[in-house]
């Protein structure tokens, strides 16, 4: 009966998980990753291949996460060598390489991808509940992480890497941990995605998708859990709201991205903060705080 709404809820949940996973890498640890969709894709392809081999859904979650996580660590190690400035372009390259290589592998379906992925057997409602459950777990984990010692270490690395090093934080190790965590969660999202849409192709995980996930993080407010979740939900629904301006959909989306970034660079988190201060729910923040991106 509520099929459509359940589908929508599931999509929002999956997007939230993807955005939160990138939030750990880019938001907490300041590593700009423009190829995040590749890790989602790694999880999705793993899950899809396993599903074709009759592996049950719940079991396939783990290999999907592990494959994505291992890939993340490998990329992370490689990117440690790269000059900080160029990390964004390198991750962009990795993302494009992923798509480019997958497209040429007949074993993975080539350009056509893998279709007819079996059902998760949970029913629409059950699956939606499961996805939202995972999203909640990831969100809670993110909040806990932010307040933990590791979160503080991430923060200092994002702020000023060299000073962090001087203070004794093993910067490369923490960066790798951030990568590992973020990509593992992305792999989980990929698995969920594969079961949701039942067919995946290399074009589902390209640059546009990476940018969409990044947009959710930046519009939500880099590093903010609430903001990112809201942004993910809103950006999932937006294309549907824009349905009535069918032809101008993308134009509106691009303009919106630009306008939000230009006028509210702190994203939804900043908007929430400002609203909170207006109502008196939040303390005033000194001008110097939150100046980083």
């Amino acid at each position, binding site marked *: 009966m509520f099929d459509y709404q359940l589908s929508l809820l599931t999509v929002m949940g999956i997007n939230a998980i993807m955005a939160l996973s990138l939030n750990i890498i880019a938001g907490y640890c300041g590593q*700009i990753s423009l190829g995040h969709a590749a890790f989602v894709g790694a999880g999705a392809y793993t899950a899809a291949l396993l599903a074709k081999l009759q592996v049950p859904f719940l079991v396939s979650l783990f290999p999907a996460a592990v494959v994505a996580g291992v890939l993340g660590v490998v990329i992370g190690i490689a990117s440690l060598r790269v*000059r900080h400035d160029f990390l964004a372009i390198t991750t962009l390259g990795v993302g494009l390489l992923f798509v480019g290589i997958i497209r040429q592998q007949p074993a993975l379906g080539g350009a056509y991808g893998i279709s007819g992925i079996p059902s998760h057997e949970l029913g629409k409602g059950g699956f939606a509940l499961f996805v939202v459950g995972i999203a909640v777990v990831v969100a809670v984990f993110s909040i806990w992480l932010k307040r933990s010692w590791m979160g503080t270490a991430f923060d200092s690395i994002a702020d000023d890497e060299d000073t962090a090093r001087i203070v004794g934080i093993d910067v490369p190790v923490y960066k790798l941990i951030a990568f590992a965590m973020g990509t593992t969660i992305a792999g989980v999202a990929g698995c969920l995605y594969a079961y949701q849409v039942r067919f995946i192709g290399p074009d589902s995980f390209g640059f546009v998708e990476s*940018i969409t996930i990044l947009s959710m993080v930046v519009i939500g407010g880099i590093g903010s859990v609430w903001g990112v979740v809201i942004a993910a939900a809103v950006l999932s629904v937006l294309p549907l709201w824009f349905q009535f301006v069918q032809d101008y959909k993308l134009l509106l989306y691009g303009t919106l991205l*630009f306008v939000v*970034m230009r006028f509210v660079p702190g994203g939804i988190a900043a908007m929430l903060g400002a609203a909170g201060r207006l109502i008196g729910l939040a303390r005033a923040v000194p001008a110097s705080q939150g100046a980083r991106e």
Partner: protein
Amino acid sequence: MIYVELLVQGVLLGAIYALMAIGLTLVYGLLRILHIAHAAILTLGAYVTVVVTNATGSLALAVVAAALVCGIAGVLIYQWAYRPIIDRPLVALVASIGIYIALEELFRIVFGPYSISFEAQPLDQRLSLIGFSLTAAELVTIFGTTALVLGLATLLGRSRLGTAWRATVTAPQIAVAFGVDLEHVRRLNFLVASVLAACAGAMVAILNNVVEPTMGFVPGYKALAVIVLGGLGNVRGTLVAAILLGIIEAYGTIYLGSVMDRDAIAFAFLVVVLLIRPAGLFSKATR
């Protein structure tokens, strides 16, 4: 003689990448902003070239018009979009992407999703050299790019303006202390980058005779690979890296086609180079 033909193909590709990448490296070197919208400037240049040529019959006029329009567009993007958020590169990146998407869509809405072409293909006379032939368009691309890059290098290396520019890239505060007008340099930066992109767009339009809304994307992101290889703000290095990439792509398409997509070759090359030389092929000593 296929090797020579592939070489020529590679050099042509490289020329286009060079024009795009030099603009990008100047912007990135100065502001640390990944100017993704630059790809839309190329497309704008291509559209203006075709439309003005079809309307007036003069290619020269069209190219000048394209340079003008794109130059102004680039400076406006800096002024309205990047300047207020200059201290937040990640935000500027997403804003740039938003601008690119919006512009790409505008082109589609105004000119239609299908391609437009020259009514009379310009510069299509063929010249025969030993073993292979070139069209006039291809020659113009090669020599035009050489002229533009040499001109830029001269400007950067031997003029007061160029010195101010290079100073601003290396040490902005000291440059300001010496009286350099930062805003002036930045606007000029975007102007030059956008004019180069306009030329790249015009050349692609003439070479392929197909102009469509998404055409800037692929050269745009390959230019990103080139600026990493060439080293920050290093015009000469970027040029060499661009040509090298073009040649590798031309040969790679034939020999690596079964392993990866043609467009992925650029980044495979980048990844391989970075594994060996993390600072890029030609960067100066890292800070």
